[in-house]
């Protein structure tokens, strides 16, 4: 479906259309809108519709709502994608640090509004624990394999050299992640409680806008019901600025979050375990090996170095958590 045919579904006749990253900004007589074309499964679309209904019920206002078509549809199906429209939210040009503070508060609000104690089942917890161990060990094994391949070479590329020089530290992080996961498992079995919240799924500053002091999440495409730790770990990783990192900022963010939505002790262990596991660094290695994006070597090196720096920053914070 062409863009004009798509906008016909909304009775929108644009004065100006500007592509901005993954969204298209559409200015019309009836206001300015953001059009997003993406790939979503039916389940993801249904979940986003469910979320809006739930937010309305809860009177939660920290999100930008989807504009329905004139026929009442939330999404317009295209050949291999779907499109949806939201009002365009013009962000305040404020201080990034203030934005993060507002974001962590809004995240705590989102989790607080949607928190639900789950019926405790030792079997379910055990299965999640074992699954997590299995997934992490498989990932670790892939990295060890990669390491042993690289080590056989006489000359290493800058990327390989960076990875090799950090490898032992990464394995230490893996051990710490496992230890904190074991602690979580023990504590959760003892406390006999487990709660879930509505997780945004991609909780980074790029999916959050502030307007006149209020904060709104955008893009709930990856939202799921899960432990609050999932969002919190994503937020911590995405908010750390490599090479200019101040551990006090993250500590303050976590304290702010907990002022509104206090984590259980076992959830703190789970958060530490999530953060210690160097998944993002492993992803950089996979990205480099596959190189589907056809990036230059130096771009891969920069990304890896950045991820390592973030990981070291996280480690600093975790020592006090």
């Amino acid at each position, binding site marked *: *479906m*062409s863009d*004009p*045919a798509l906008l*016909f579904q909304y*009775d929108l006749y644009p004065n100006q259309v500007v592509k901005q990253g993954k969204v298209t900004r559409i200015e019309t007589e*009836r206001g300015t809108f953001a059009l997003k074309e993406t790939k979503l499964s039916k389940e993801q679309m249904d979940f986003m519709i469910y979320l809006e209904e739930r937010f309305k019920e809860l009177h939660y206002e920290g999100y930008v709502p989807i504009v*329905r078509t*004139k*026929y*009442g*549809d939330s999404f317009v*199906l*295209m*050949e291999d994608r779907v499109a949806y429209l939201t009002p365009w939210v013009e962000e305040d040009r404020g201080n990034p640090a203030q934005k993060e503070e507002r974001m962590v508060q809004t995240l705590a609000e989102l989790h607080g509004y949607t928190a639900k104690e789950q019926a405790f089942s030792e079997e379910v917890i055990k299965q999640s624990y074992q699954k997590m161990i299995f997934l992490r060990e498989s990932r670790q094994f892939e990295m060890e394999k990669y390491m042993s391949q690289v080590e056989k070479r006489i000359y290493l590329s800058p990327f390989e050299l960076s990875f090799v020089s950090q490898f032992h530290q990464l394995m230490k992080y893996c051990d710490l992640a496992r230890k904190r996961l074991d602690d979580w498992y023990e504590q959760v079995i003892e406390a006999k409680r487990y709660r879930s919240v509505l997780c945004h799924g991609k909780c980074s500053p790029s999916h959050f806008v502030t307007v006149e002091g209020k904060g709104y999440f955008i893009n709930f495409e990856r939202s799921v019901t899960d432990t609050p730790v999932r969002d919190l770990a994503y937020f911590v990783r995405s908010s750390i600025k490599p090479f200019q990192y101040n551990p006090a900022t993250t500590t303050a963010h976590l304290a702010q979050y907990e002022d509104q939505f206090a984590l259980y002790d076992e959830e703190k262990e789970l958060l530490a375990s999530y953060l210690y596991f160097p998944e993002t660094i492993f992803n950089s290695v996979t990205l480099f090996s596959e190189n589907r994006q056809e990036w230059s070597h130096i771009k891969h090196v920069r990304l890896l170095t950045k991820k390592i720096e973030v990981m070291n920053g996280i480690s600093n914070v975790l020592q006090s958590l």
Partner: protein
Amino acid sequence: MEMDVADLLGKEFGFEQVSLLDEPKTVLTNVGKKKLTYWRERDLLEYHLNFRDRFFSQYGILCNRMIRTLDGDGYVQYGDFYITVHDLVEECYAEDLYPEMKGYLLAALVGTAKETPCSPQYAYSSTFPYRETLTALASIKLLYPKSYTLLVNLIPEVKKRLLVDQPNILPPAPYGGYRLKRVMGQIFFEASDAVPLPAYKWIVNEIQFWFKTMETESFVKSFSALINGVDDEMQAYIIQSVIEPWEWRSCILALQQGSHSDQKIKQFQEEWEATRNIIDTLQLSISDRRVSYE
């Protein structure tokens, strides 16, 4: 009275401006011209509403769906009527559709019709009423003996074209009187507001029309696109309906109702011949209580 409609539409649909135009059932709003449909039967309205929503959401073809009210409803009540609001699309689709698109459009209608619940009053049977037709045939024996003999002599051929006691559940669909239009470069299917038609009327008539008006190669392409666009179950029912001697039944019923003429018999003979040619061209067959398409 008319002002009431404009006020009602403004209030329920959130249009900032609504004014009635000279063209019947047409209003001008702040988001363009809209067409109003007045429905007496709510069942029929809801059938059309569901049909058009599914048609677009499952097959991506734009059509004259019902614009929603602020509360998300597809219609508003106005006295004894229900009013629905639609896009007014003025540009006709002038070109002939390419063969595959004709087949896809029909397949989309079959698929949508299959999924759309239909009020019992429109749930026509698509099963060929052989015994009932024989009874009707007996009733014209004395009235039109020559035509009767012609029709009786065809019974062995008729039987070859039947899957006796095998029900056909091809769904009815609101196919009659549709118009193809164009909006923003896309095809816009403007369904009529009529009651749904029995399947043998809408599907078989359309296939016969294709055969009359298209080159053989294009006709085969359209039919393949139709068959490939529906599930296995619907494929079998479509083939069964094409083979079944509906033209024989129509002729008998017309004679029974007293509309005999040489012209009617000539028309029947042409239709009979055309169906035979369609069956040969598409290599359709019935054997061992199964239909096939080569």
